[in-house]
């Protein structure tokens, strides 16, 4: 579903991604861990073209991100086409980023109605089912600020799912939450993984990574240091840097 080959990204002169190779298969859950500033968020944002890469190849579902290949040439996509591609990829942010001026229902149906042109009734119907799925049935008319952090994050997940994405990106979805609220969000993500969603999760929840993840990638300083089955990587890390990091988070 996602394939990265030698992906490079720099901000100004500092290179943040220094040739990333990884692959996520359909229905797989990939967890990414690594110290602050190692480029995890940047990689995630490159996948739905919120950031532009400067080298290597990055493709989602067999199509290059941000470009179209015709013959032996790559054509940069126009904004509308990039937007259409992004609509197929859900993204959940560390700080939720719900739209505060819209109700929970408004947040969820906005993109389906305005981007996919789904009929309003149908979108509402679906939104209610999604809210039920994330354990927030009946909260349609509340405004985001009236919800707890954990509830807001679950609304954000429902909002992303409303576009029926084929891939979900999570950027530290629980690290802005109080410890007792983390569980609810992880439960929703676990259910989602069981339902066969392809997921790319940046997280520090090692329990979640071990239990739900199919792959675990450890990144440091813009490179993939170590990748493998979560259980193995956590139990006996091959690299000194991985060992160091794990000793701090476990």
């Amino acid at each position, binding site marked *: 579903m996602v394939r990265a080959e030698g992906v490079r990204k720099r901000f100004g002169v500092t290179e943040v991604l220094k040739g990333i190779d990884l692959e996520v298969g359909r229905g797989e859950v990939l967890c990414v861990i690594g110290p602050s500033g190692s480029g995890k968020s940047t990689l995630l944002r490159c996948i739905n073209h919120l950031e532009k890469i400067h080298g290597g190849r990055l493709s989602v579902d067999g199509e290059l991100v941000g470009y179209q290949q015709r013959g032996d040439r790559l054509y940069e996509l126009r904004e509308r086409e990039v937007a259409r591609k992004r609509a197929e990829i859900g993204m959940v942010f560390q700080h939720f980023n719900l739209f505060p001026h819209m109700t929970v229902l408004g947040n969820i149906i*906005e993109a389906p109605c305005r981007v996919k042109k789904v009929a309003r009734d149908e979108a509402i119907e679906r939104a209610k089912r999604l809210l039920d799925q994330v354990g927030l049935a009946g909260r349609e008319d509340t405004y985001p600020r009236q919800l707890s952090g954990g509830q807001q994050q679950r609304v954000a997940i429902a909002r992303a799912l409303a576009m029926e994405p084929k891939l979900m990106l999570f950027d530290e979805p629980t690290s802005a939450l109080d410890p007792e609220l983390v569980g609810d969000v992880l439960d929703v993500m676990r259910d989602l993984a069981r339902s066969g969603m392809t997921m790319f999760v940046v997280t520090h929840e090692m329990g979640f990574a071990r239990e739900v993840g199919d792959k675990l990638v450890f990144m440091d300083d813009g490179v993939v240091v170590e990748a493998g089955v979560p259980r193995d990587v956590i139990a006996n890390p091959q690299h000194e840097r991985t060992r160091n990091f794990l000793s701090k988070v476990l």
Partner: protein
Amino acid sequence: MTAADDSTGAASHLKAVPVRHPGRWVAAAVIAVVVAMLIHSFLANPLYDWGRIGRTLFAAPILRGTLKTLELTVLAMVVGIAGGILLAVMRLSPNPVLSASSAFYIWFFRGTPVLVQIVIWYNLSYLYKHISLGLPFVHVTFVTFSTNTLISQFGAAILGLGLNEAAYMAEIVRAGILSVDEGQSEAASALGMPSSLIMRRIVLPQAMRIIVPPTGNETISMLKTTSIVIYIALPELFTSAQNYINTTFVSIPYFIVACIWYLAMTSVLTIGQGYIERYYGRGSNRNPPSGGFLERMGRALRFGRPWLPGRDQMVLSTGNNGD
């Protein structure tokens, strides 16, 4: 025995005495005297001529002038706000041509007096007899208008006031847009929304919270700025008052009449602004204030002290030496 010696159980029997504010009573007395003196001077001085004010307050020319002022203000602000939003979006656009054009517009229209702009619009027919749409230098014309039919007195006023206002509104709108967290447009892009939709549905509605208060300021300021169209002899409120002055050679009472109407319109605008702010503030508070301006004023002006939860059971937890 002092309160500090009491156990916490005994402290609950103590009566709490609120802080006294003798200063407030002194201030109230001083202000009451000053106000009474002012009112007396208004009533006792025949030069105010309240009879004349009463007679002209609802006179037809004054009412027509008031309506014209209102019309000018509304239309100029519509042009100003629409233009301001357009200019602000252009200014923030990644397209350097649009951004520079907007900057130039703002520089020019803020940098020249609005009076001159109005007079130039009014006298445009002196500079250009006809206005035609076509390609420059190659003598291709599509349509031609006579300038005088295109820009009337009223049109010149709206153009002058509105286009000038747009330059100021552009900066207000830009500040509003910049105040919205970047995460908002990022989340919207991630949902596949194109940038025009993001601006219209996500960013601008949130920017409105920042945009509305200074826009209220601008509208009230515009209400009074419209009086400068007296230079192109457009009969709005101030001009109407001036006409009375020119025929009767009495000025103060007519100026008071105009001020009463300006104040009345300002009051209505202020109340309207409160409602607009409440609309755009929805979802921005955990406990949104209930009721509009009138209800809140009603509550604030109600006689007696506001009810405080548990005021009667206030407990002193630290000692005092009041015995």
